[in-house]
């Protein structure tokens, strides 16, 4: 236990610095400091504090739900009728969110697939960064922020440290900014198992290759999931792409804030429609029956081949663990992204 406390203190350090600096930071200064990031790479201890920043990111992601998610959960609680099992479930969910935050303990014992999305400037060393992420994941597992959750698919052996082929899952994107942004999502097995991929036309629903066909299969996926994905949940959807790209994009849609509005008008409308109609199905929290089945839906489209028309759907449970950080010049946490 004593060891744990010390480690926590170390991990907290960078955030404290940020908090102190925050008011003084202006847009201009932030640009200046990020330029230094690229130059500062040669400094020996840079990556030491990067590991601490990443452990802090994992800890917060595992134990604290982002504000936009908490907001829709509270709204869902108030919507349910009093003295129903649905309201009962939502009240326990609310209490769990508060307790996990207070204790800095995992919201859910299934800390899920560890998915990193890193946006970085040109000239960034991905190999080095990957090693730092791996170190941070091992540390976070030792500290109990992550469960031992990585199993060799052939031997059934648990690596015990969440490291192995494909684990953790890291997606790199180069962007035009000078800063490094690291987003993290922890996605549990229960909700991952109810994800679905449809190929249009889909005869059982008479779903054709148009927006109405897309709507039909998304609603079908919500029905098939019932309460098994620990609803009320949030959908990330990709229309088009190949099978692989479609699923990855559907997960990246879950990086959007729940309250944002899609730039594409037809998709913004579809997102709204899916939430409204799903909530009329009466599946409710945990599948107990009730008013809230979905908390949100985020959709994007990728180009497809003339021969293919996939709709890929990722379901995220109510314990929607996602957070992100912008790194400062010493790889400290400069800003929280959600």
């Amino acid at each position, binding site marked *: 236990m004593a060891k744990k406390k010390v480690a926590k203190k170390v991990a907290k350090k960078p955030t404290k610095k940020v908090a102190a600096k925050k008011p003084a930071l202006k847009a201009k200064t932030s640009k200046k400091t990020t330029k230094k990031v690229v130059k500062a790479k040669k400094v020996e201890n840079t990556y030491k504090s990067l590991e601490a920043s990443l452990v802090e990111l994992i800890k917060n992601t595992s134990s604290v739900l982002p504000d936009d998610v908490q907001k829709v959960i509270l709204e869902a609680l108030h919507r349910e009728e009093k003295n129903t099992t649905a309201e009962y479930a939502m009240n326990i969910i609310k209490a769990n969110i508060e307790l996990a935050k207070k204790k800095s*303990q*995992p919201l859910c014992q299934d800390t899920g697939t560890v998915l990193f999305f890193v946006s970085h400037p040109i000239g960034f060393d991905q190999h080095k960064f990957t090693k730092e992420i791996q170190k941070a994941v091992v540390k976070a597992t030792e500290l109990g922020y992550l469960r031992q959750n990585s199993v060799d698919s052939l031997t059934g052996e648990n690596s015990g440290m969440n490291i192995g082929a494909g684990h953790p899952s890291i997606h790199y994107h180069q962007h035009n900014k000078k800063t490094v942004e690291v987003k993290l999502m922890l996605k549990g097995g229960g909700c991952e198992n109810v994800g679905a991929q449809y190929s249009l036309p889909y005869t059982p629903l008479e779903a054709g290759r148009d927006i109405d066909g897309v709507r039909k299969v998304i*609603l079908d996926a919500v029905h098939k999931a019932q309460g*098994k994905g620990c609803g009320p949940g949030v959908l990330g959807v990709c229309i088009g792409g190949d099978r692989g790209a479609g699923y990855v994009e559907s997960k990246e849609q879950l990086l959007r804030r729940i309250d944002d509005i899609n730039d594409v008008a037809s998709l913004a409308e579809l997102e709204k429609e899916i939430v409204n109609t799903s909530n009329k199905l009466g*599946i409710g929290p945990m*599948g*107990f*029956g009730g008013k809230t089945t979905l908390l949100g839906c985020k959709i994007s489209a990728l180009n497809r081949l003339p021969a293919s028309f996939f709709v890929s759907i990722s379901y995220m449970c*109510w314990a929607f663990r996602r957070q992100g950080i912008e790194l400062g010049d010493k790889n400290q946490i400069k800003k929280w992204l959600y």
Partner: protein
Amino acid sequence: MKKLTYPFTHEQVRDLKVGDMVLITGKLFTGRDAVHKRLHDGVKPPVDLTNQIIYHCGPVVLKDKKTGIHQVMAAGPTTSIREEPYQADVMKEFGIVGVIGKGGMGPKTLAGCKEYGCVYFHAIGGAAQVLAEKIDSVDAVYWEDLGSPEAIWELSVTEFPVVVTMDAHGNSLHSKIEASSAEELKKALKE
């Protein structure tokens, strides 16, 4: 809100109906995939499960190095449907009175509940901290060779919150909601 207090009996659980919100006080035995498979393969349970409740849960347990005392850090339910092939037989063979899990179970288990006087309690998925707080002590651990999440943990709990979603009278909230939401879906797809 109903209360179910140890020692449990088949008569007690037969009184429970789908939709009842219940607070359980007493003993729970965790058991998930590997335990069910092993029992089903004919291995005798290491502890008498007569009139006991099995909890589908792979808890996070820490052992104090000095005192050797176990503490449950997180203990939400895991998806129950994976035990569907085994659950009814476990009810029959070992005389359990209840199962706690999440997501519900299928027709074989529902029939087993009716025949052997058993209920399925739904705990709130993801609520690992609230549920861990209801655990007062870890009283024993069996079959640790299966690994910590898969072992049988004997737990004492106070007012552990659950909802009856499958009762001993053949009723299942899960099949009811699945059917009613299928009707609504049909309407929505015609719009």
